[in-house]
């Protein structure tokens, strides 16, 4: 019952992390943190998190998205969100994190936005 699975793929110099499952306290949050760290260590600094298959994000999970955003920025990179679900959109709205994250609904536009 792994809570979150993460696959990465490359579109030019943009790294897309396809997340599937739950970003919650414990395993899910740790996996996200490690995946982002791995990308940054590899010098991949344009990160697009595809949240289309994320069913559940608790307050720790939202916190982990914020940390990933900050860490990426501190490393001279950019982190953006793709395919937020209705639920994640609601959460980003109530937490006012919509003002922090750049979000996209279309993968191509999202990739182009990093240029």
């Amino acid at each position, binding site marked *: 019952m792994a809570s979150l699975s993460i696959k990465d793929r490359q579109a030019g110099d943009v790294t897309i992390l396809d997340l599937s499952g739950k970003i919650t306290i414990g395993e899910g949050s740790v996996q996200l943190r490690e995946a982002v760290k791995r990308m940054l260590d590899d010098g991949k600094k344009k990160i697009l998190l595809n949240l289309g298959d994320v069913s559940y994000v*608790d*307050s720790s999970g939202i*916190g*982990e998205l914020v940390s990933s955003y900050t860490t990426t920025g501190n490393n001279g990179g950019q982190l953006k969100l793709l395919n937020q679900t209705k*639920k994640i959109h609601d959460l980003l709205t*109530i*937490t006012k994190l919509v003002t*922090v994250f750049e979000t996209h609904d279309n993968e191509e536009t999202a990739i182009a936005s990093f240029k």
Partner: protein
Amino acid sequence: MTETIELSIDSKLEFVDLVASVTKSVTAKMEFDEDDASWIELAVHEAVINAITHGNRNSADKQVEVRFVTEQEALTVYVRDRGEGFDPSQLPDPTSSDNLLNPSGRGIFYMRTFMDEVEHSIHPEGGSVVRLTKNKRSS
């Protein structure tokens, strides 16, 4: 008519899903709509996480007790830990621009947003309790 379901778990994150499955059964039984059901589940999740991590400081031998009280028009969930409690009126606002990039501090905010009433108190027999109440929408 009031009905009560009580669930008690060791303070381990791995049991949190179990609370979620009971929460789901209860909200389904009460016929909350899907949206409300998922926000209630999230609020209860946050309360249980706080009870485990802050209240019981992850001591597996301390229990977290979750009590669901269902009425015709409302669900009330009590989550009790064995900790000292805290002052919930002193919490920073996670949506203020100073705190926006803070990786934590959104749990109680989640609860307050998703539930109609959230009240923290000290249990007469020890430990702290949060009461979460959600009314059914009048349709």
